[in-house]
């Protein structure tokens, strides 16, 4: 009857099993690592390419409706990922507008969802980074006869650390997100299973070793990202 109370033993056994799985390069773990990184890297990089020009433009210029646009971006920075998952699901589902593409339950669908989540984050942080540059610098650069393109370039240079920090935040969110990738990816083994969806599955099936192994790797990634962020912010002028 007290077998159940051995749960703490299961955790210790789980940690040992996890170390074994990591050290022996278990193929399932590798598949999960590969899918997670592929989806998160592609989506974050493509989002950065789109968002940095937009974000720095908004940060640089003054125009009508800027305050409203800023509020909108800030709202979308905290957009609930599951809702994004639902939206992308409906768009890609056979009945949806893009249903004929046949992309539901693929890594492409996951990339699209993660891309849409990352765009506002990188726009928002990019804009804030440009705006936070000392106005005196802006005036100095302009007084030296710089045109707008040169000013933009100087501001980017001075805020590059904050921009990279924004990128890391977007990547960290992408790799640890669970709801959206579960909905549009379907958690298919060897195909669309990520760290997070795999942990959900293995926990519900009582296979704690695998769940803990993936948890250890995911937390390590989060730690490395945060370490990088702290270094960046500490060194920022």
């Amino acid at each position: 009857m007290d077998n159940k109370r051995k749960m703490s033993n299961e955790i210790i056994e789980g940690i040992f099993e996890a170390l074994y799985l990591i050290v022996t390069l278990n193929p399932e773990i590798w598949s999960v690592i590969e899918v997670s990184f592929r989806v998160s890297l592609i989506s974050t990089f493509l989002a950065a390419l789109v968002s940095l020009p937009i974000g720095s433009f908004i940060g640089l210029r003054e125009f009508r409706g800027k305050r409203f646009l800023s509020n909108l971006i800030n709202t979308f920075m905290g957009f609930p990922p599951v809702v994004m998952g639902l939206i992308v699901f409906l768009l890609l589902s056979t009945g949806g507008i893009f249903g004929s593409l046949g992309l539901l339950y693929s890594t492409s669908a996951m990339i699209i969802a993660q891309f849409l989540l990352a765009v506002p984050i990188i726009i928002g942080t990019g804009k804030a980074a440009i705006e936070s540059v000392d106005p005196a610098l802006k005036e100095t650069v302009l007084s030296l006869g710089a045109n707008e393109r040169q000013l933009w370039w100087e501001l980017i240079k001075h805020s590059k650390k904050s921009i990279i920090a924004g990128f890391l935040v977007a990547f960290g969110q992408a790799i640890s997100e669970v709801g959206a990738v579960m909905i549009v990816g379907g958690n298919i083994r060897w195909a669309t299973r990520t760290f997070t969806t795999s942990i959900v599955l293995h926990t519900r099936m009582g296979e704690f070793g695998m769940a803990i192994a993936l948890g250890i790797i995911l937390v390590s990634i989060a730690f490395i990202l945060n370490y990088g962020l702290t270094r960046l912010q500490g060194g920022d002028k």
Partner: protein
Amino acid sequence: MSERRALKTIISEHKAAFLIIFILVLGGFFGTFFILDLLSARNPNRIILATTTSTYDSGLLDYLLPEFTQKTGIEVSILSVGTGQALVYGENGDVDVILVHSRSREDAFVNDIDGQTPFGINRACVMYNDFIIVGDENNPAELLQNDNITTVMTKLKFSIDAGNTTFYSRGDGSGTYSKEISLWSFIGVTPDIEWFGEPDKYTETGQGMAATLQMTYQDANNQGYTLIDRGTWLTFNDTYTILQILAESVVGEDNLLNPYGVIPVNLELHPQVKYNSVLRFVGFLTSDYGQNLINTYTKNGETLFHAAFGICNSTHNCPTTEKEISFWTIYQQEFT
């Protein structure tokens, strides 16, 4: 050394240009990856199967599908959901084929109600096992081995009402949930009304079979019961040692049999489904070769699923038709 310095000078003079080239290269790199990804998603040799958590969690599909992929080169992606969800995915054409266990809803799926095009065609019976009720070894509801199903459900109801039993229900529109609701209806109980808003007595997990079994095991008062198919139970019974089979079919009763059917999604309704690959897949499952594989899949020496193509009849609550057998015969030949 001077060459390197010259290069450095060039780079520092054209920083912006180099940055743009760098960004374009990165963009091209990740863009290419994305396009490759898009192409692989549309691979005609990949079909999507929506199935119940019971067939997936039991490991049966992981055992069968590599054989199929090896013989045909067709990859099968599995969406492990409940029967209800699998049927909806099939109706929407988001998957190519479904493998489920709820005969009445399968019939509705393949019948042309009011002259409308049916969602699926040519259902084939694949296998069956049976449902059992497992619970804490304390057996607070005092179920006995020879109790028939009406007695079992009555005892459970009284024990739940007395606060001595917590029943864990899938609560998710799955085939197992449909079966559970029909078992309660034998004694005139509708759980949603009987224990409305009382999760301590009747817990709806809203998750798959393995998760629900896990929750039954974790029951804080050691009084959890749940309805489960034998395949999933045999997969996990080593892990959840304090749970035991407390009720199963008694001789002459067929209420607890659990037949599984496979249904291709109708090409006429959803032209994008990979119908030819699906025909080969169902041909594989129902061929003597596939059926034999199902029969030989065991855990601890016990068979999890029994092959049933052409065998299922009304005593399994799942009659086979002549058309079913004749239609699939040609697709089975590839695998014999």
